[in-house]
């Protein structure tokens, strides 16, 4: 599952430090390897992001949207933002993993 850690590295391209900061808080608040949680329990990751955004859902969704758009731009792929957020919130780990795999595949090319 180590190649999913590329996701956090890519976030640093979105904004310097962003991946490292999110990784730090996910680890702190969930107590486990954030990469593993990201793939298995996306809803938990969403909740942590919400906490980081002072509990505001709209801000959190916008925050995720910004990240996804940046990944789209960096990797040259198209992702449905609505679906991405919905899958995260509904904890659909299978579908979320499919999206992540597609992202990571492009990210690996970049790396």
């Amino acid at each position: 599952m180590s190649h999913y850690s590329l996701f956090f590295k890519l976030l640093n391209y979105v904004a310097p430090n962003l991946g490292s900061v999110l990784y730090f808080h996910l680890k702190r608040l969930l107590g486990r390897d954030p990469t593993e949680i990201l793939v298995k329990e996306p809803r938990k990751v969403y909740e942590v992001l919400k906490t980081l955004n002072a509990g505001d859902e709209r801000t959190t969704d916008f925050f995720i949207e910004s990240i996804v758009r940046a990944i789209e731009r960096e990797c040259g792929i198209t992702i449905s933002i609505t679906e991405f957020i919905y899958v995260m919130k509904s904890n659909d780990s299978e579908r979320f993993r499919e999206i992540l795999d597609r992202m990571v595949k492009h990210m690996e090319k970049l790396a």
Partner: protein
Amino acid sequence: MCSHTLEVRTVDDLFAAIPRGSLILIKGASGTGKTTLAAQFIYHGALRGEVGLYVSTYERRDEFLEHMASMGMNFKELERKNLFYYIHVPIPREVKCLEEVFAAILEKLGEYRASRLVIDSVTALTAGVPEREARAALQVFTVYGLKPLGTTTIFISEVPGLGFEQYLADVVLELSTEYWEDRVRRFLKVQKFRGRVVEKVRYEFTLGSRGIELLTTHAFRGVYSGTSLRVSTGVPKLDEVLGGGVYRGSVTLLLGPSGVGKSLLALHFLIHGARAGENVLYIDFGESTEDLWSYVRTTYGIDVPSIEERFRVVAVDTYRYTPRELVKYLSEVIDHTKPLRIALDNAQHVLITYDNEGYSTLVQIIKLLRSVGATSFITLLWDIETGLSLPLLALVDNVIAMWLDFSNQRVRRMISVVKAKKSRHETGAYEIKVVDGKLIIE
């Protein structure tokens, strides 16, 4: 917006007023006291059990510890108790290195359970990377890194700095220096305080063996503090004219030209108290201590040692102090001696020395005298023939005018009570004489 106003007397008060989890920016030129102020923030927090982390790009740990020990802050002891951690970091040359530094800081905050953080300086830390990326990294670190942790953070910034950090900060404190005569005056300005109405924004401060100390002003207190006790001036007839002496805790202004007997009357007032067993304090802005004792000895024929223990004399050279330093110094002297009576002689030196700040300094001194509750006399060289429209008169409780009468080919010292608040005083003019060391009013 919170309607509370910001009223602080110490640096500790200032930091206590800042909500937990805030980002504070301390900015200023080199040598203005930024590091000391930030160190005080960590130190006072640690004394209350809040763990602090200090990240520096300048001083090494041992230099910092030694530097702060000279300011009365024992960080070594706090380290021993795991209440303080110091990290020295090199300046990152790439944004990736900067990210690593920020990530490491977050890790350390968690590891040490630190709730207070200082980065000294954020300008230096981000100096090696392009400004655009430095700003973005700083924003992410602050908003998504520190804020969710609830860490109260100080960013130290050189002037002019990135500019962007001011936007991020909840509180912006600007330190600056100005020169007065050959002395440095230091100022702390509260430039921004999110969610708070800040009425007073600029504080003068000293930087010394106790770190940064604000030279705050005294709140004005009402007349007499409600007491109905009367105090004798030591001159029976003057007591009578005043309607029974002056009220305890009141402030009396003695106005008159040179040689009329203002100092004599003020000394009379103090000696009367000292002889009755009261602690008294004589503050002279004009003469030296030696001059005063010989004056007391020859004028009153007083055995000085018999009252010396209770009679404290302080000669003040106003040019050695900035206006606020003078008020602070007087405050410390009064606090130390705890007098029941105070005479402030030659107050015109305050007006002359401080020029356009002279009047406000004298007002501060009057506020100070009121706040301590001692009964006070202030002598001021003033030609009453020029009138009594001095605004200072409104601030004091009693005004006694003295003048020289040159009629009938002789000089007579004259006195009259112009104002005696809450008293039925007499308004006549009386002649003053000194007979056998006693001041007599006829």
